[in-house]
């Protein structure tokens, strides 16, 4: 699928990923335009996370090509891909325990900072200004994500719904051009889900990010996505606008035949 005339943020061509002979995804061709909120749906085990892992460099594709802003990134290490402006959140939360919310979000600024031993030793002269400048960016995000009240708490003791928000805040702190969210609303109640949807829309509108969103709740997908790709058994079964995809017979079939409730 091609969105003509638009700038492409992410382009995947012929992506396949196998794990010891098991084909987790295959034949993925997708191009996401800048500024889009692009949904990725499919029953459990259909390869959504695997595709994201291929894009972010965790498990590079076995074959195929990935381009970010038309630059080939296939096979680059995750830290390189991060420095090219890709941020993601994890399906099972990956905050750093033992650190405060503030330090977690500050870590999102890592690629914009220059950590070193001598800067640490000569903190007052070599690091203090940089810390304050980055703190300012982080405070903007804390305000944007409404996390002021937990700023100084350890992430360990925070409820899961807020943790998901902190992880999004950490991802946003790196000022990414592509933001990948792996089930950011999982485990949230209705109200929290609506807030999260609002944050994602605002992030796109105010912070110029392109969003790749994995989500099981179809009302969220239809509510905020511009286009959607549906996977089943690692293959593309439908693409298009949310309403097209949701009513596509193969998608309905996949969900009824799959482990999830029909949509």
């Amino acid at each position: 699928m091609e969105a003509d005339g638009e700038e492409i943020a992410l382009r995947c061509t012929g992506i396949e990923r196998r794990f010891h002979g098991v084909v987790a995804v295959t034949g993925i061709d997708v191009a996401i335009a800048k500024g889009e909120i692009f949904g990725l749906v499919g029953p459990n085990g259909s390869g959504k996370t695997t595709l994201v892992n291929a894009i972010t460099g965790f498990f590079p594709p076995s074959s195929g090509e990935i381009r970010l802003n038309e630059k080939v990134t296939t096979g680059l290490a995750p830290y390189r891909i991060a420095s090219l402006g890709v941020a993601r959140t994890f399906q099972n939360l990956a905050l750093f325990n033992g650190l405060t919310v503030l330090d977690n979000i500050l870590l999102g600024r890592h690629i914009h900072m220059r950590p070193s031993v001598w800067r640490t030793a000569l903190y007052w002269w070599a690091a203090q200004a940089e810390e304050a400048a980055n703190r300012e960016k982080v405070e903007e995000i804390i305000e944007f994500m409404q996390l002021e009240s937990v700023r100084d708490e350890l992430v360990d003791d925070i409820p899961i719904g807020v943790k998901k928000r902190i992880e999004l805040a950490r991802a946003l702190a790196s000022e990414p051009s592509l933001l990948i969210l792996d089930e950011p609303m999982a485990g949230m109640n209705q109200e929290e889900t609506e807030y999260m949807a609002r944050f994602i829309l605002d992030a796109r509108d105010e912070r110029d990010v392109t969003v790749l969103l994995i989500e099981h709740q179809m009302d969220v997908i239809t509510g905020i996505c511009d286009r959607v790709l549906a996977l089943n058994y690692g293959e593309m079964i439908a693409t298009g606008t949310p309403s097209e995809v949701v009513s596509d017979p193969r998608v309905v079939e996949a969900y009824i035949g799959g482990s999830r409730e029909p949509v």
Partner: protein
Amino acid sequence: MFYRLSGVRHFSYTGDRSLYRIPFERNAALALLAAAILAPWIIGELTLTSLVQPWLIWTSAALGLNLVVGWAGQLHLGYAAVMGVGAYAGTHAARSGVPWEIAIVLAGFASMVIGSVFSIAALRVKGLYLALTTLAMQFVIDWSIVHLSVVSGGALASLRAPDMSLLGFEINGTAGLYYVALAWCVLVTIFMMNLRRSALGRALMAVREKDYAAEIIGVRSFVFKLVAFAASSFIAGVSGAVLIATYYHIVTPDQFSTQVSIQVLAMVIVGGLGSIIGTYLGTALILIMPGLVAALFHGATELFDLRIGVETLAHLPNAAYGALIMGCLLWEPLGLGRLYHNMRSYLIAWPFGYLKK
């Protein structure tokens, strides 16, 4: 009350990140520093040289190990060997006429180079395997020191270190040597305090907590583990050299054995992973441990007419370190530093204990 966060307002991000957020704590730290500076006039010479000074030097060393184990989360069983490299490098440099202030820095760099080379190999594996590799490093370095007579002067030899002098001033009195140790300890402590609020410290903790999540925000975990090993080896090397220059005055191969590595690790674990004040407390406890255990068993032998051989008595402190480490891991994995932290949290809220924190 004096111990409060409320009413303390920081109007800048820099102020919010100051080393002590509570004025009382800053004043207490300054008072402690003043006491440390006046110590030669306050406490007896024997206490100063046989208790306080080794405490400061071993605390500096243990803080360096805490950087790797507590901050970066990598188990290290060969730390004493790295100190040994610095001790020999510094002593040899000083013996060949290099001024001590340079010899000490050279010692740090020698340890840093050797520690980093070993850790490049060691960091290809994780967890327990890494621990075993660092233990192997301890054996290799021990063996090299003993068997290369250019280094040690032979297995049973001991090398005399030249008298200490810094920037042309001879430092020979007990107070002078104590100040050298104190200065080094203060420097390491300040570095570790800065680490806690710097990008480097955060990156290390990210690697410790979740290396895959660290990678996704752009932290190269291999590089940062290496940086942790290098910095910690530098601290080890200087501490080793300071230990020889101001305290032992001679260097022998058995000063930096496997057993010493375990001792320093015990200081870190009992003190508390990642805790600075905990490292001070843990080091104190481990240092007075042999004395305590001996006194305890001496008392017991008298009381119950037990017969404990000298041999057994010599091994008891080791058993006690082991028990302490196990006890810590079982009941308070964050060690004495955590106990201090709990007390602090209690005081901050006192008398409104029902408030959180």
